[in-house]
């Protein structure tokens, strides 16, 4: 491919991102999302004692809310944008460019909403030291990664399923599976197979759940083994903190890349 055409390909993607972002940002959803994080973080910093404790509480909120909002809002948005997608596809734009533009145009404002909502209160109240800053950075990274992963899954759903109600149901079911049912399954497995060596299957289960990966990645930063849960404890014992962090981040990256690659493949073959 010549340099010229690669440049124009790049810019078509940026243009789609630009317009989609201004559309998403102007929707009240993203504002409400940012405001929610702002209010919660502010309240935790005001009434929850020191910054580290506020961050610890935030971890649980982030792990719960980001996947839910991202996957539901993302799926809904994509269904509503279907005619717009068709309009763009009728322009001289490659599907790959459009897909990239739509993805970034959705994941970026959601990430920015989260970052602004959590970051602003810390900027107002001040940070309690370098360790706290590093933990906040880790929380920000985990939040952005979770947003990227669940936006990718939302794309997968919306590209594959024609029916909005079904797609929305699927989105909620996937979130439930990762955020709620999963913990029950781990407990069940632990109690049933208590007599067997469970370390490896447990790690496998953890790698299969981006929410749990993000949780362990974040909790390894706090000295609270009790909160790590079964999978987290096993994970840290097996890999140690440093390698564990790298592995968790790498697998989270894969959780973003694989659905995206599959989504793009389906998107390129789809009939609109």
């Amino acid at each position, binding site marked *: 491919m010549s340099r010229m055409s690669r440049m*124009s390909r790049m810019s*078509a993607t940026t*243009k*789609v991102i630009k*317009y*989609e972002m*201004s*559309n*998403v940002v*102007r*929707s009240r959803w993203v504002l409400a999302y940012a405001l929610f994080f702002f209010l919660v973080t502010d309240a935790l910093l005001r009434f929850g004692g020191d910054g580290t404790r506020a961050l610890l509480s935030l971890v649980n909120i982030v792990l719960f809310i980001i996947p839910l909002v991202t996957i539901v809002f993302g799926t809904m948005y994509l269904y*509503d*944008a*279907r*005619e*717009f997608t*068709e*309009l*763009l*596809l*009728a*322009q*001289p*734009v*490659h599907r790959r460019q459009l897909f990239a533009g739509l993805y970034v145009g959705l994941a970026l404002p959601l990430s920015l909403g989260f970052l602004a909502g959590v970051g602003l209160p810390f900027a107002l109240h001040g940070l309690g030291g370098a360790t706290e800053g590093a933990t906040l950075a880790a929380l920000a990274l985990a939040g952005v990664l979770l947003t990227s992963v669940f936006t990718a899954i939302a794309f997968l759903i919306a590209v594959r399923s024609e029916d909005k109600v079904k797609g929305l149901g699927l989105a909620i079911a996937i979130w439930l599976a990762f955020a709620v049912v999963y913990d029950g399954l781990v407990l069940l497995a632990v109690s049933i197979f208590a007599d067997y060596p469970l370390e490896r299957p447990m790690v496998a289960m953890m790698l299969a759940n981006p929410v749990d990966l993000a949780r362990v990645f974040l909790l390894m930063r706090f000295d609270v083994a009790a909160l790590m849960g079964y999978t987290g404890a096993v994970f840290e014992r097996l890999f140690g903190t440093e390698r564990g962090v790298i592995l968790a981040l790498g697998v989270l990256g894969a959780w973003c890349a694989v659905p995206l690659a599959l989504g793009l493949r389906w998107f390129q*073959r789809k*009939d*609109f």
Partner: protein
Amino acid sequence: MIEMRGVSKRFGRVDVLRGVDLDARTGRVTAVIGPNGAGKTTLIKMILGLARPDGGRILFDGRDVANEVGYRARIGYMPQIARFPENLTGADLLAMLEDLRGGTTPVDRELVERLALGDQLAKPLRVLSGGTRQKVNAALAFLFRPELLILDEPTAGLDPVSSSILKDEVHRARAEGRTFIITSHIMSELEELSDDVAFLLDGTVRFSGTLEELKRVTRQANLERAIAQLMTRGAAA
């Protein structure tokens, strides 16, 4: 300008199109007529690459459109349903398409002016009425002075004044030598606008030729009766 050869398409178990041959000749208005579900919209979407044919070929100016993108810069498309990103304004949308097309020719705002869309373009698209959105939709198709205009039920949802303006635009652009493909269920409208007719039934083209030929073959005085005759004949066959 457009040649379809043996184009077929199935959705699940339904054969929507079974070997369609269709031509849209340069500088002429081709009406695509057929009952609901005959595959008219699918046909149009395949010209634009929105849907891919399972078999057959679609040529734009003699070149196969499969895996091509650039030719779409020469097409203006007015889809059946006009739904846009709700938080953008009409002006944003126009700017975006201009941006994406990156054309050098100045845009054609005649339809924007004549449909008196000026003030409406400053509002978010979500607050516009269905009819106004349809007007924006029409203006978008003409905006880039495309060589080929594809209008999918263009006057559905438009008031009589707007739909007359739109039809005048079609006449004007046709006089400039541009090509049209139009679908509609309003036969009088197609009779007024079109040169050629392709009649689609059960996934194949049952008639293809000029409007005059159609009337002669069916021995009917107008398009509506001619098509009605083709349909009853099709049901009998």
